[in-house]
């Protein structure tokens, strides 16, 4: 069964704020292990719209930066797994997801 990821974007990295992201990366992970990526541009930054997108698109997991508790709890209640406080470029994050090494609070910048 396909799994869907939703990652709010700021340029090519995870948006630091869930509620201020206008670009969203939707990833469909096929049962074969392939990652199909699609970017959606929202007309305006809105945490409510992002939540609506996540539920209507049947997202399984959201990987994001800072998210306020109200929207976090709502997504959890909707059965969506939220990995928040994640920092890093999307490419590395997707690799980490494939490898199963990503958790909430992961920082993928090396100094």
């Amino acid at each position, binding site marked *: 069964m396909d799994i869907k990821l939703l990652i709010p974007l700021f340029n090519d990295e995870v948006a630091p704020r869930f509620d201020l992201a206008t670009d969203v990366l939707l990833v469909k992970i096929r049962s074969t292990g392939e990652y199909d990526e699609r970017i959606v541009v929202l007309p305006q930054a809105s945490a409510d719209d992002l939540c609506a997108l996540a539920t209507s698109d049947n997202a399984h997991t959201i990987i994001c930066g*800072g998210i306020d508790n109200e929207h976090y709890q709502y997504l959890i209640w909707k059965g969506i797994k939220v990995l928040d*406080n994640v920092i890093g470029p999307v490419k590395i994050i997707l690799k980490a997801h494939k490898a199963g090494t990503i958790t909430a609070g992961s920082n993928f*910048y090396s100094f």
Partner: protein
Amino acid sequence: MKNENSYLVSGLLNQQFLLPDLLDEIPVGIAILDVNGKIKIVNHTWQTITGAEPGSITGLKCMLGLRCDYCFKGCPIMSGKTDFDAIATDADIIDRSRIKIPIRLTISPLFSNDKKLSGFVETIQDIRQVAELSSSASKAYSLGGLVGTSPQMVKVFSMIPSIAGTDSSVLITGETGTGKDVLAEALHNASDRAGSPFIKVNCGALPETLLESELFGHVKGAFTGAHENRPGRIKLAHNGSFFLTEIGDLPLALQVKLLSFLDDKEIYPLGSSKGFKANVRIIVATHRDLKQMVLDKTFRADLLFRLNVVHLHLPPLRERGEDILLLKNHFLKEYCTKFNKKIRGFTKKAAKILLGYHFPGNVRELRNVVEYAVNFCDRDCIGAEHLPAYLTEQDILRPVIESAKVSSELPPQKEYSPAESWDHAEKRMIIEALIKNGGRKADAAKSLGWSRSTFWRKMNKHAING
């Protein structure tokens, strides 16, 4: 990882010391950023406010550590500007425990001796308490549900405590929807009778026969259907306040009985010869012109004199200027809480429409408009399209209002003739104040609650030469 010696400060005191030690003693969140906007060092307070571990954010772009909305709203560092003056702004962050915190943010560039940009210093302060205080401070413009900052309302607010302290009868006048009932209740709540009943009767809501029994009560067998003794509303208000709204609709026969009660404070229930001494404070309200009604012989002059001990007039909303803005925000907050919606405010166009509308239904109408808009708004700001259509198509309603005026049995109040808009009302207020004060601008400004400069500016605005 930087060596501790990288942060040694020399030359300031007799001995060298470490910069982090100094920064940690300052009760304001401080971050030092390099020329690329990357975090070099943060103090304890910064960590406490953001919840970030210092090791995990050093070397990161500031926006990844701070997660502030200002980062996305024109922060000069994020947009790569190097030449800007210090900035101070209110913003918000989301901390590591997912709490949105309002902050006061300042950003200043740091320059070396040879005037080259060396980095930036950023300070943050948690202003949650200030935000709470300011929201309670906004209540300073309200009293018992009445909200306003206009000079007329401030005058009413200042009168309430002293009036509440007495037992004198109060007559409240004002157009429909101006808040007469709210003011009556505020008077009761501010008085010593606050713990006792506040009984309200609408004189226009009941037919004459029922109204008498409602006010004064009846005894069993007093009339057909009087199967038991019933205390009147005045008796129920014993030791409290009795509020008669729409007193102008009180039938003449009952006016006599009310006058008699006001004189000896004793009520006689229908069919009873035994009186009851009621200790009540009478507050009455009307939207009608009682003086005109006395001339028309539909209201007793002696009752008017008896009731008109203290007279409070509530101005119509269109004469309260900026109060419209205050009230629309007040009602927006109220209905957002009630309907669990997150609406930040009104668009400029919507605010302009509201400010330009003449509100014949006054505060009540404004409240209904905001309730409607909150119901229909699906964005974070109420736009013109969320307002009731009649606000933008006023001509549709005008014939209805005009015909209502024509069909009204009584002429409108002469004392407070309706103004077309706030501008019109403001101009009239200035001219009236000047006439009242014999042309003395300082006194006229004082009577309106404005400073001399504001008064002068408004005189110029309306091209009044004094």
